[in-house]
């Protein structure tokens, strides 16, 4: 999962980024509105953490511009607790949730998880596909109830695919969502991760759609 953090306070930005990385997210970061807007406009993210009070271009304008240009990624805004008008403005501009400052990092993590889940149409922290079950909160994977150990990269590939069941995900899309902007996108590491994943899971849930990408098949629309 790839997340953009736009927050002008370096210390707070650093903390959010660190916490997200520790929890397996790929994070890009921006310290002002213009840079944040540019990244959100040109890169693909699964979620954005956006401060309202930003230099150069405020968070509300950044968000409005994104939404006007058709970007639909979930956005979590950071507001001051007593500023309800910021929250109303933020939601009206297209935000999906808010966290009031000062906050515990865990709260931001929980909201990001919920937003990603909601965007994928899941109601709980647990995603299942046949015998495969992952708990996105604890980053745990099990097959038929037996825990499976995955590296963080393998986990990210599986999580992304399971968040979008029955949908063909191209290698490019996977790369975009799993690596930050400096990653070498021509490499075929994705194929390697998928191969290892299949081996570790031991069940065939990841289907290769030739020339297009991969698909997690839940069998829901086979009928």
């Amino acid at each position, binding site marked *: 999962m790839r997340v953009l953090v736009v927050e002008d306070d370096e210390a707070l930005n650093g903390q959010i980024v660190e916490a997200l990385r520790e929890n397996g997210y790929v994070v890009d970061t921006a310290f002002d509105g213009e840079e944040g807007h540019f990244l959100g406009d040109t890169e693909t993210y699964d979620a954005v953490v956006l401060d309202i009070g930003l230099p150069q271009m405020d968070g509300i304008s950044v968000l409005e511009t994104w939404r006007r240009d058709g970007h639909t990624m979930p956005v979590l805004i950071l507001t001051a*607790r007593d500023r*309800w008008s910021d929250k109303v403005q933020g939601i009206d501009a297209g935000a999906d949730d808010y966290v009031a400052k*000062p906050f515990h990092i865990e709260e931001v993590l929980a909201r990001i998880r919920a937003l990603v889940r909601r965007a994928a149409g899941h109601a709980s922290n647990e995603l299942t596909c046949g015998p495969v079950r992952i708990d996105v909160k604890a980053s745990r994977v099990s097959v038929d109830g037996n825990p499976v150990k995955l590296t963080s990269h393998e986990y990210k590939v599986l999580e992304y695919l399971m968040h979008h069941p029955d949908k063909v995900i191209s290698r490019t899309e996977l790369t975009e969502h799993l690596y930050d902007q400096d990653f070498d996108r021509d490499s075929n590491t994705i194929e390697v991760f998928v191969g290892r994943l299949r081996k570790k899971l031991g069940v065939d849930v990841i289907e290769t759609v030739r020339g297009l990408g991969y698909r997690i098949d839940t069998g829901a629309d086979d009928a």
Partner: protein
Amino acid sequence: MTRNSLTLRLALLAAAGSTAALLLAGVLFTSLFRQAVERNFDSRLEYLLTALIGAEISVTGVDAQVVESLGEPRFEIPLSGWYWQIRAGETGDVIAASQSLFGDSLPKTPIPPADGAISAINLIGPSGKHLRALERQILSGDKSFAVLVAGDADDLAEQVASFGRTVMITLTIFALLLALGAALLIRFGLRPLRDVRAALRSVRLGDSASLEGTYPVEIEPLVSDLNSLIGSNREIIDRARTHVGNLAHALKTPIAVLQNEANGTSELAGRVREQVAAMQHQITHHLDRARMAAQSKVIGVITPVGPTIDGLVRVMRKVHEDRNLTITAEHVGDIRFRGEKQDLEEMFGNLIDNACKWAKSRIDVRAVARGDRLVVTIDDDGPGLTAEDRKAVLSRGKRADESVPGSGLGLSIVDELVRIYGGRLELKPAKLGGLSVQLELPLAFDR
């Protein structure tokens, strides 16, 4: 019209002034008229006296031809009130008298002096009439006579009284016209003051930011002073609010950093966490208070209730999208709150947020105008609170359950804001099963 009214004051002054002027005029006219009429009467008597004196008078009588030529027929009519009489100078006996006396005589008066001066006398005549008479002593040969001519003074009084009545009617009509004029004058003259009042009201209702329009030079300074007062009041409050907001923002980010930095298990981390929490609590509390105190008595601040509720409900629906909450918002017509938007949002926001945190599936928000109060109820179908908890939950920072995130300041801040606005906050069990919060606040309306 109250006692301390400019209109009443002007009306009373105008009434007193014109009444005095008109009374004075009435008295003056009547007295001038009386003088003129009396002068006229006296000259008529004098003429008659002179004519009578021109007659040949002897102890036996007077030349009848002269008497006839006096040209005063009322001397012939019995008891007409018009008489003449000639008395002998020495004895005072009546020698001759007009037919109108009808054999009667006038009351005896002293003989006038011998120097020929005319004396004026008021008499009561035979039929009880008031008479005005002129009498003069003349010498004819070696004899002296007193010649008197009298006329009906009641006639005179009647003329004066009739004139007085006419004057009174005329002056009364005049007074009515004056009163009408004064009323128009007051109405027109005080119009700028009424305009100022209307302009102030529209400022108070929040329809305009300052007193608009042009005013006469006499009250223009007042209007411009009022405008600068309103402006500076607003500016001071805006500045205070901006400072407070900036301070809050400036402190909140470092606090968030400290809080997240101190998440280890060491004693230091624990101490820092504890102190950071205390700092956060204090900052929130005091900044809220400062902000509220600065805003509670601002003139002309009106916030529409409907859009505020709708905005907050939109936020809640979005934020709790995946919980399938049904949030209804009902508000009828143009309800307006007499106070700051930020305060209204703070109250509603905290309450609706609380309701959403606890609700199982439904939250009903309802705002109505009841008399001069805005009544807002927020019901949820959550677990609700016991009577004890309902009481305790309003005390500062206390939370009934620590398991749902929040600073715990929400309700006590709402309670404090409600009190500053002179409103009321009540917690009851809701029909939906959970908690029902009822807020009563001042409504903005035309006064």
